[in-house]
Every structure is written in C-alpha cells, then in structure tokens.
C-alpha cells in the first residue's frame, strides 16, 4: 500500500467509474477543429463557384483533400457529441433515445459520404 499514490487509490472508485470521456472528446476535437476549420475555410472556399474540372483538379491535390477529409471526420464527430448534449437537455424518454440514435446515424452517414466523395475525387 505504501507504494500506491493517493490518485491511484482513488481512481475508478467513483459511483459511475467512467464519465469524463465525452468531455475529453469534446476538448480534443475542439482543439483539432480550431486548427482545421481556418485551413478548411480557406482551402475549400476559393473552389466553390469554379467549374467541374477545376473542382476535380483541386481535390486531386494532397493538401486540400487531406484538410477536407480531416475536417469532415473530426467535424462530424464533434457534431455528434455536441448535438447529443443539446438533445439530452430538451428531450426525454424514448424521444431522447431516438433523437440521439438519429444524430449518430446522420453523423456517420455524412462522414462516410464525404470521405467516399473525396477518395473518388482524389483518385
């Protein structure tokens, strides 16, 4: 016992054993998005309004394609967790479960569609 720190003896003994993952995921994804969002706005923005050939050529380049892919993955993951908090505040019971499942499905569907489109554009 003498070799255990106070932190080690206390950890995992709370009533829920877990519970900080959601908060930590939001912190990590928000730091990532603080870097990704400005990069995405200024690599995606200029190509909106261009013709089809220019758009295809733009996303065949590595930097715009990788920034867009990372923003889509981290962004929809951040949306999934953030929208869940809003639903938990306003909806209750079965409606709450249904809406949270719906948001999770929408987030992963958008993520998969965006990545599929980017891979097709890049290759």
């Amino acid at each position, binding site marked *: 016992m003498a070799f255990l720190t106070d932190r080690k003896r206390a950890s995992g003994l709370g009533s829920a054993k877990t519970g900080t993952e959601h908060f930590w995921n939001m912190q990590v994804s928000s730091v990532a998005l603080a870097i990704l969002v400005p990069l995405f706005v200024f690599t995606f923005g200029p190509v*909106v309004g261009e013709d089809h050939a220019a758009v295809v050529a733009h996303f065949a380049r590595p930097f715009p394609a990788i920034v*867009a892919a990372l923003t889509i993955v981290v962004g*929809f993951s951040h949306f999934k967790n953030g929208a869940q908090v809003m639903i938990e505040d306003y909806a209750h019971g079965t409606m709450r479960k249904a809406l949270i499942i719906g948001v999770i499905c929408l987030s992963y569907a958008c993520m998969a*569609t965006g990545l599929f*489109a*980017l891979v097709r554009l890049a290759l």
Partner: protein
Amino acid sequence: MADVNRGNRPLSPHLQIYRPQLTSITSILTRITGNALILASILVVWWLLAASYDADYFAVADAVVTGWFGKLVFLGSIWAIWYHMLAGLRHLYYDSGRGLDIPTAERLGWACIGGSVVLTLITVVIL
C-alpha cells in the same frame, strides 16, 4: 412522509425570470450556431459527392450551393463557424479555471461577438 406535497413544491426560477445577460446570450448562441452548422455541412458533403460523380450531377448541386439559398446558408454559416470557434476557445479557457469573474467573462463575450463579425468580413472579402 417523503411523498407529502409531491409535485406541488415551489420551482426554482425559470428562464423567463432572468434578465437577459451577455454571458447567457453568448452561451445560447454557441449552441445555436454549432447545431445550425449541420445544414451547411450536409450541403458541403452533397456538393463533394456530386463533384465526384459526374459533371451533370455536379451542375445540379453547384446550382443549389451557388444559388440564393446556398449563398444565404454559406454566409450565415461563415459567421456561425467563426462565432462557434471563438466561443469554443473561450470555453477551453474557462475549462482551465480562468476568466470566470464577471468583468472578464463579459469582455470575452464581446470579443466573441466582435471577433466573429470581423473574421466574417475578412472571409467574405478574401473569398
């Protein structure tokens, strides 16, 4: 005795009893902007999917994205994403245990509002 007067107790004050404050308004705006960004996100994903498909399908999606509806959504979303980003950075600062006294919190609130408008103008000029 625990269930005496169940459901008929005085309630804690509801939203309508509070005077709107800068800190509460900026907090509510963070939630609204973050969740509203789903609309532009879906448009972006659809536009990318159409671009990856062929020129005809791209023309359909591009007409929506660059039409009045798309322009309105994207202009609003440019402000929303800058506001949400600044408010998020403010939350990270709060989470470190700093900036929680009222004068600092109100200054940070005005910084989010002013900063998001400035960043939106810069973005619109550049793009």
